[in-house]
């Protein structure tokens, strides 16, 4: 694992429209390194100059191993790290099905179809503050690149990393090696704080007097909890969402998230791929019921 962040990584201005501004490139990216952590978790390093040079923290790539149409779609992966000099980027993945299995078992030198970098990135903190990075499970991935860029810009981010059990915290050693100030939590108490990572976050916030800003990526309920905490305490929070995604280019409209900006009367669906995946937490209309049939009636275009 490199842990090297390209010097060319920059923050981005908010994207004013749903249309992707820069030109992502689509090419066959060769796998150059694999670091397996147990059976399920893998860090894959691919060669792709455009992604290595142009990625911003929070952006993602769409990957597909091989040309099979048996599972037609690509899969989205957050960019975990980039190395502009080696022209490589890395992703962190968990094997959950046949497509991720095939990706995880590419041989070194084999290629995956790779489109990127895509999406709206995390935005730089508005004012000097302590950035708290909250990652749940494999949602930790984009926070590594974010953390590295924040440190380069003289911030001192603190990373909160939670999972159901110790095995879910597969990147804890990497984070330690990179020297991040780290708070770990497991629901079963097998490592660190016993309970939800958001409970550990609350405990920290109760005793923290510095102005803080929150950056989170993880499962929906965790992001909703971060949003509630941020709203209650008046903290700025950016969250990276991970819905089912079809194309990554804003055409299938499959990955929409109900959102409402401050100047909007009613919620509207926005594509996670082009208008996200990073949203202000206050703009997302959170729902615990992911398939609420009433949602369509509550939302206008």
């Amino acid at each position, binding site marked *: 694992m490199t842990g090297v962040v390209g010097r060319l990584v920059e923050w981005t201005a908010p994207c004013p429209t749903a249309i992707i501004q820069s030109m992502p490139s689509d090419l066959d990216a060769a796998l150059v390194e694999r670091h397996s952590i147990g059976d399920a978790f893998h860090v894959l390093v691919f060669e792709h100059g455009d992604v290595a040079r142009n990625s911003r923290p929070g952006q993602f790539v769409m990957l597909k191993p091989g040309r099979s149409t048996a599972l037609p779609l690509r899969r989205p992966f957050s960019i975990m790290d980039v190395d502009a000099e080696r022209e490589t980027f890395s992703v962190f993945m968990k094997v959950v099905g046949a497509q991720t299995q095939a990706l995880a078992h590419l041989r070194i030198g084999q290629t995956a179809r790779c489109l990127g970098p895509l999406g709206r990135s995390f935005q730089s903190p508005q004012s000097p503050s302590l950035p708290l990075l909250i990652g749940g499970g494999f949602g930790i991935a984009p926070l590594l690149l974010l953390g590295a860029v924040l440190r380069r810009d003289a911030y001192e981010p603190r990373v909160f990393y939670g999972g159901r059990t110790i095995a879910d915290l597969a990147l804890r050693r990497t984070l330690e090696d990179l020297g991040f100030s780290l708070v770990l939590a497991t629901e079963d108490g097998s490592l660190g704080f016993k309970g939800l990572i958001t409970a550990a976050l609350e405990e920290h916030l109760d005793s923290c007097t510095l102005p803080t800003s929150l950056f989170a990526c993880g499962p929906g309920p965790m992001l909703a909890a971060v949003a509630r905490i941020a709203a209650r305490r008046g903290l700025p929070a950016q969250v990276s969402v991970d819905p089912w995604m079809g194309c990554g280019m804003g*055409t*299938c409209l499959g990955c929409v998230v109900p959102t409402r900006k401050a100047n909007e009367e009613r919620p509207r669906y926005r594509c996670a791929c082009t208008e996200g995946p990073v949203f202000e937490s206050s703009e997302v209309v959170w729902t615990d019921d992911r398939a609420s049939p009433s949602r369509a009636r509550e939302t206008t275009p």
Partner: protein
Amino acid sequence: MTLAVTIAGLRLKNPLIAASGTFGYGIELENFVDLGILGGIVTKGLFLKPRAGCPPPRIVETPSGLLNAIGLQGVGVASFVHEILPRLARFDTAILVNVCGDTVDEYAAVTRVLEDAPGVAGIELNISCPNVKQGGMAFGVDPLLTHAVVKEVRKATRRPVIVKLSPNVTDITVIARAAEDAGADALSCINTLLGLAIDVETRRPRLGFGTGGLSGPAIRPIAVRMTWQVAQATRIPVIGIGGICCAADALEFLIAGASAVQIGTANFVDPNVYQSILRDIERYLQRQGVARLTEIVGSLRYPRQQ
């Protein structure tokens, strides 16, 4: 060698058209794709007013396919004409607008708005979307309703009217002939098949809308069969649609009787798939010693029935 085809008086530089709902309004992909290499683009479906679409989750991958319930989220026809069409019309490709409606009147009204818009080559009538509660597929599964809506839209435009057929019927040729009788210039064959995927843990549908429309290679043999049936049952051109990913897939539809094809789900994986398909179709024609693509249309050598 020429790949040019003419459908309903509309000359396309090649038979490859991007299918509605899989290519946005075209301009979303201008950074990814040389839009000028496409024979045509069918836009995302448009109603009179903007539509929110279905609640998420909206898509789920299934074996060799994609089940979706997007629900025709869209900007509405006025916004399309004023904000999107001027940008899209700059590209050298035929712009076909997919027209939707909750009622016959709405279909006709959307068509009339487009009638004055420069840059529209034709309209595709969407009477086959399975993911809306009113309109959509309700028209496309009933020959009388199909006839009624096509007749009204026919009156509202001088432009070519292509009717997109639903496969969710017992005999697609009945609907195809109803559309033809009402004045359709061509038929798109087929829209998605109605499907249902269930999350066994929660025992809920995996899509927010419940059911969805199945697309992708999984439906291709059904689509080729229906294209073949419709091409034989009608005298107007047929545009084949269903899981086309490569040149051989496209050629199946053409040989079955389609005059052109639409590419749908494959756009989500690789919107640049057109280049390689065109190249491979040219190679096929060379190999077969055929100078014009139109010579292979409907050239199926089907075994004689005993």
